[in-house]
């Protein structure tokens, strides 16, 4: 998947939970969900569930723990889509 495409898709997913609108507007691969977007850990679970639904994949606990920024999310989604 192209990074730019993924960034637009992840932007839509995090939009309802992101408290920092500036960081949301400037979303890039190094954007951290908790520190930059100010998403709390409970809402980060919903982000991960929305990612699962969007790409029709299942994310494991260890993968969830690593999914802290956009690049990590892209890596996990890319790997999962290859497995399919």
């Amino acid at each position: 998947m192209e990074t730019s495409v993924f960034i637009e898709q992840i932007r839509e997913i995090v939009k309802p939970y992101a408290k920092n609108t500036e960081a949301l507007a400037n979303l890039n691969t190094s954007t951290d969900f908790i520190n930059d977007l100010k998403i709390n850990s409970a809402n980060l679970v919903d982000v991960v569930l929305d990612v699962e639904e969007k790409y029709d994949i299942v994310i494991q606990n260890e993968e969830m723990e690593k999914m802290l920024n956009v690049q990590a999310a892209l890596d996990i989604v890319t790997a999962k889509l290859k497995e399919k």
Partner: protein
Amino acid sequence: MTKEEVLTYLPYSHPFLFVERLEYIDEEKVTGYYTLHADHYFYQGHFVNNPVTPGVILTEIMAQIGLACLGIYLVRDTIATMQPAIAMTSSEVNFYHPVLPGETVKVTAEKVYFRFGKLKCKTSLWSNERLICDGVLSGMIRQKTV
């Protein structure tokens, strides 16, 4: 884990323990009861000369039964070695009728999901077969090695 054992793991005590007994619990749902004794401190001020149970207390009753009790049951296999820490993270509740001092309320909660430590439940609170309030509550349960 029996429904009586679940209560022994609750991290609350008087004056903030709002579960009296559970009627039923499994991995999907829970039912429990609490009696709002007239001597509760909050009736002195909510409202002046007109005691009515505060909505936050009704929400707390639903959270202690629907999130805390069900959450403890869901992590029962590791609870002996991994102490759970719990926190409510969101609530969206509608209220339909008041609850007066002395009433016994019944709470039913149904799991929406339990993933990555987050429990989300649909829950409702009843008094004398009448729906008092209902909504969706979420909480996180984290376990640390004792």
